[in-house]
């Protein structure tokens, strides 16, 4: 991890360093998600799924030694930017490789979208050249199945639409994103270049290139997913409507159906604490969460000083932009 690339995730107020790590690697807990909401970092959820804790803390230690960060251990380790750190953050966020379009909960997991793009282009390119035997760009069995089904569904007539729409969408992106996307695609007739070569040509470090790539696929997805969902590109890259984890979605659905708390507990066979966490997850992640729903208010009123009620109030205030 190139340490300075972590600066934009901090501010001049102290932030919990572990919560930021878990957000970047995609650990979905109420504590991490609410930290993401509080720090404005939810869009960056799971951007670095492979970042090891050791590398992260090593990078923070370097930033501290370079006086970009100040770290403190209260109940848990926290860190804030120094004035120098804030300046470096401002400069970094103006670079064309910085992440302006990423948003896990709106455009999905960038890695999956990247793999889908690579595989779909490979499949269509090879098909058009009558090449039937080749090594796919991914080995994930479910992704292979999904693209296979999509390919048969799309049929020959929509292939041209795929090619033209993709070209059109890419042409609308900034030059850096265009260069990365175009040269990363590959099939038996077009080899593309390796990430290392691409980074060299663009004069980016490996870590900066990685960010540039995340930004490239994210900006492409933002464009594509704004289109009519019936068109061929959105149909391939559509993100499941479900923002919540499956169990949280189920609990929230039951609340919306007007079930009582005891009915929900009985139907879901889960602990009350878990069900309350599901509601908090919904409160954090859903833009239209109904804070005034009778059941939500009733649970909060049962123990106004308890964790659920306090957290819910905090989430509501954060979403309304009210400083606590």
């Amino acid at each position, binding site marked *: 991890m190139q340490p300075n690339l972590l600066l934009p995730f901090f501010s001049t107020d102290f932030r919990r360093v572990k919560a930021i790590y878990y957000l970047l690697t995609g650990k979905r807990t109420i504590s991490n998600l609410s930290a993401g909401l509080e720090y404005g970092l939810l869009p960056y959820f799971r951007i670095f799924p492979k970042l090891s804790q050791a590398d992260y803390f090593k990078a923070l230690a370097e930033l501290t030694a370079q006086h970009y960060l100040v770290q403190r251990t209260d109940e848990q380790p926290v860190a804030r930017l120094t004035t120098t750190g804030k300046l470096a953050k401002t400069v970094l966020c103006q670079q064309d490789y910085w992440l302006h379009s990423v948003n896990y909960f709106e455009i999905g997991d960038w890695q999956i979208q990247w793999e889908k793009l690579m595989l779909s*282009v490979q499949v269509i390119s090879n098909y058009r050249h009558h090449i039937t035997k080749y090594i796919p760009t991914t080995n994930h069995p479910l992704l292979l199945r999904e693209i296979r089904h999509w390919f048969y569904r799309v049929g020959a007539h929509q292939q041209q639409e795929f090619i033209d729409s993709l070209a059109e969408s890419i042409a609308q992106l900034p030059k850096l994103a265009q260069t990365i996307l*175009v040269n990363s695609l590959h099939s038996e007739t077009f080899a*593309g270049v390796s990430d290392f070569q691409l980074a060299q040509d663009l004069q980016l470090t490996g870590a900066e290139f990685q960010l540039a790539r995340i930004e490239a696929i994210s900006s492409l997805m933002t464009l594509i997913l704004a289109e009519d969902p019936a068109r061929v590109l959105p149909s391939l890259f559509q993100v499941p409507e479900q923002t919540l984890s499956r169990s949280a979605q189920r609990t929230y659905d039951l609340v919306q159906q007007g079930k009582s708390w005891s009915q929900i507990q009985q139907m879901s066979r889960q602990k009350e604490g878990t069900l309350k966490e599901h509601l908090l997850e919904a409160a954090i992640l859903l833009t239209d969460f109904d804070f005034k729903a009778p059941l939500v208010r009733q649970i909060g009123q049962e123990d106004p000083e308890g964790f659920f009620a306090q957290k819910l109030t905090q989430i509501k205030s954060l979403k309304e932009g009210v400083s606590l």
Partner: protein
Amino acid sequence: MIDQQQLKSELKANFGYDHFHAGQVELIQALLAGDNVIGVLPTGSGKSLIYQFLSLHLPGLFVIVTPLISLMEDQANRIRMSDLGGVAVLNGQLDFQEKKYVLEGLAKTKFLFLAPETLQQPEVIRQLQRLSVGLFIVDEAHCISSWGPDFRPDYLQLGAIRRQIKPLTSLVLTATATDRVVQDIQQSLFGQEPSYLYKDSVDRRNLYLRTEFVSNPEEKWEILTQLLAHPWPTLIYASTRKRAEELALLIAQKTKRRVAFYHAGLEDGARLHIQQLFLHDQLDVVVATSAFGMGIDKQNLRLLIHDEMPANFENYLQEIGRAGRDGNQALTLIFVDVHDYSRLLKRQTSHQIRPEMVEHFFSMPRIQPQADLSIEQNQVLATYRRAHFPQETVIAMLKKTSKVRDDQLQIFWDFLNSDQCLRQQICRYFDHEDAPQPHDQLCCSNSHQSTLAEVLQWLNLPAEAVEEVANSLATRQQAWQRLFD
């Protein structure tokens, strides 16, 4: 029994080859006769062709145990390119849904590649018991022996699992096994059951072996740039991921060769792309850790360099085995620095699992990763605990493994520093006999005996046709034209 002539015509008809490599036909015939077999065949001798060939003869699922994820993906991809049947891969990188999907689809699968730790999972064993397993294949079987440097405790369970899934027959393959390791393989997998053993010499006559003594990094770089001035497809083994990245960067900045680095830290897609670019001669040089290795079949690799000495004969043999797979001459060269031995010994010692670490790990109520251990150390101890090894046995085994590794490092260091024929020494180590052919000018040398320029002159390695790339980055229009027009 199917005679050799018939097998040969099948080979031609189905795989396009005119001849079998040494050992292939013997092993195929033994398996067709229902024997369990152990094959010790040199690198590049077409070990995977044996089970691919048998898929046309034996019914049921072929279960292939392979230690490295990259290796199983490479082999699976190669079979996917043929029409031999469905291929599936099960490893720790799959999530729950993907694993379920693969297991549910096994009835339609002919080849299942999996890691030894995945094969131990009860749901996997249950599913295999429901199906008929035609052939149980253990690849890189030397990992079974605690007398081998690549010992993997997961491999110790394979004998018991084999008895549970009851395959029609079993094929055990390795390229690097001393007699002692072969005995361990036999004992661990087959016990008292008889098996057919085919052991070929490890010697690959088309590989020129060279040790290049250097006294500092500048000297090493100077020699490296001399070598990289030639247009040969080149693989450089680096000892760490960091070194692979740094060296690739240096080569990119200082030479005109198209280079990339390759290690297990890269995403799967990026690794696959590099392999493809290299296979199709669109990359000239790859600087890799040992993650680039077994199973990657680039035929025309002419130059293979070890930036730092490997830790033992076994790794050395596996790694140089990537070169000259087309049968043409290739140069393999190790840089040797006087400090290499102590550096490597220190690295091995720092990775060692000490008795107090074992005690602490085993004192936990359940298996849980310990922060003071590396990922690999946690995995090793978890494997022992899962297999119910007593703590004392684990400590004793780790002590033994560590001693074996230290001894092997010493033996390999002596080999590198000796003035005797390198090939003879390798053959004596693995084959317990002299090399099939005597030493000559195209055999081996070290930098005290001859200059590199002389060696290059003797070898006269064939230059590959390098595709000229005017501008490496394509515009959208250029890319679209080649992708879709």
